[in-house]
């Protein structure tokens, strides 16, 4: 119920203060919650990511705020909860498109960004530092796509590659494919949404992410990001469920 209340608060606040949602829901309607009785909302008022292209400025509330999309938003809390990443660890984001390292890692956790194509070139220094970290027996968590992580592991000596903790990333529409035992759900617009739990289910980062099913697919809402506001963004076809072991929200592929 608390999870649901947080979502209702974000929807109402977005309707009252964010130009994009004001326009979308005042003219098109929103169901669950119903904002304007009598308006038949398309897809329950959810929005496909392509509709947000070029409109990020309209996702900023009237009072102002940042307009930057962080593709690794939420990485820190998810790693802390599911991989017990604590002070002293190094998080290496292996992503050719990421311009900046994640900003919400736990206190004392260091991070770096690696382009797998540039491990012998521009990123050689960073790569050496990652290898040194592993040699010292310190923990390194590599986050990225399967192919990118394979490239990083192939570049490391075999002994060090075994010490690397790999956290491959899955898109919300790619959850049914085999994976495990460690994996994250991430979306270029919404950031990191959850991770594979010890029970083998896709756990949502429910303190920060809400999920509801719409006719167009799974609609995700960021509960704590004030700007740019991302509410009911359709990604993948999962349905919300409850983990029987942990009693917390999960995505059922």
């Amino acid at each position: 119920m608390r999870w649901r209340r947080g979502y209702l608060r974000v929807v109402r606040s977005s309707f009252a203060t964010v130009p994009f949602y004001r326009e979308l829901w005042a003219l098109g309607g929103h169901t669950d919650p119903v904002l304007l009785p009598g308006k038949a909302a398309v897809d329950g008022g959810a929005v496909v990511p392509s509709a947000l292209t070029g409109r990020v400025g309209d996702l900023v509330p009237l009072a102002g705020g940042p307009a930057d999309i962080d593709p690794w938003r939420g990485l820190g809390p998810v790693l802390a909860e599911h991989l017990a990443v604590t002070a002293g660890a190094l998080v290496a984001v292996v992503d050719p498109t990421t311009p900046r390292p994640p900003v919400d890692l736990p206190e004392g956790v260091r991070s770096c960004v690696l382009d797998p194509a540039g491990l012998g070139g521009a990123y050689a220094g960073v790569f050496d530092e990652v290898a040194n970290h592993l040699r010292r027996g310190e923990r390194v968590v590599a986050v990225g796509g399967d192919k990118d992580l394979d490239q990083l592991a192939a570049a490391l000596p075999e002994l060090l590659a075994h010490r690397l903790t790999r956290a491959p990333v899955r898109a919300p529409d790619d959850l049914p494919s085999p994976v495990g035992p460690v994996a994250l759900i991430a979306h270029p617009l919404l950031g990191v949404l959850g991770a594979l739990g010890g029970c083998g289910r896709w756990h949502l980062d429910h303190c920060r992410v809400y999920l509801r099913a719409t006719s167009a697919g799974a609609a995700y809402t960021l509960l704590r990001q004030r700007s740019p506001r991302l509410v009911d963004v359709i990604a993948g076809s999962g349905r919300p469920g409850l983990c029987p072991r942990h009693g917390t929200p999960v995505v059922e592929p």
Partner: protein
Amino acid sequence: MTLTARVHDPRADDEPSGWAEFGARCGLHAVWDYGLMRLEAWMSRNPAVLGVVRDGDRIAAAATVLICRPWWRKPRYASTPTTRTACGWPRWAEVYTPWLSGYPAVVFDPDLTDDGRRAAVRAFERAVLRHVGPGLMGITYSPVYADTVSVLNRPLCRTWRNDPTTVLPNEWSTEDDWLATLSKARRTSIRRYARKIDRDPTLEVREGWGRTDTDPHELATLINRHRARLGGLPRDPRTAVAGAFLAELLRRKDVRLLTYRDADGTLLAANTLLDHPSSIVLQHWAALAPAEGGRHNLYFDCYLRCVRHLISAGRDELTSGRGLVDVKTSLGFRERELHTVAVPRLAVGAR
């Protein structure tokens, strides 16, 4: 004469009967379209409602009123309309058209006498008071023409002059006749800019009525950026321009959109022109600053194209709002006096 007044909230109420006929009779511009007012009201912090005064079945007067929340409160869009609109929160009403800063927002039937107008104003103000409730702090009429001030003014009210609006009366039969009345330096520069723009292969200039080939959100972003760069008015009751509103406005056959684009498709500048049988309006002008990749002197090319339409269509005048009066004067524009009348709560609805 029995006058009755009612406030219509375009978000919740149907179009008043006889509204289109009243608009045609009084020569109202496109922005008075009820559908456009509905979009504007939804996308506003201070929603515009329509006050309508009737003499029997016939509309005798109308006014666009912004119901304003105090500016010190957290910025948010207006609450969703409910059946109970009146409340005790402090609010005031501004009789103002957010899209035409140089035109009065109160319009009377041309047949209405001065006494009839005064009675209509009283009926209208009482309707606003009923709509807003005990929290109404007062009503301002801004702007109004000099000849309307006497109709609105009464004891306790305060009146003052505003910045004037600018008007170019059509006194020519050709574009060259207009250019001949300008100073030599201005005439030469306008011709030079026009030639340069025509010959520039990296600049795409498109103009047309009822255009749907431009992304309204791209245009809204440019207009809002332009406004932000110039600095907003103190306690501006308007909200940022919304793409949904522009999408509907630009689709109209009496609205012309002029766009200037770079070779890579970047929108450099844009202008909207509202056509009208007598008084056409140069409504929006927005451009990228040269430091952001914008071009110099597109502003004068835009004016040349607007004057071209004024003369070729045989309209009476072109208005271009307030601000930059010196530049507009150099283009032949004249000043038209505008006033504000502030009616405190105690005088609302009083004789």
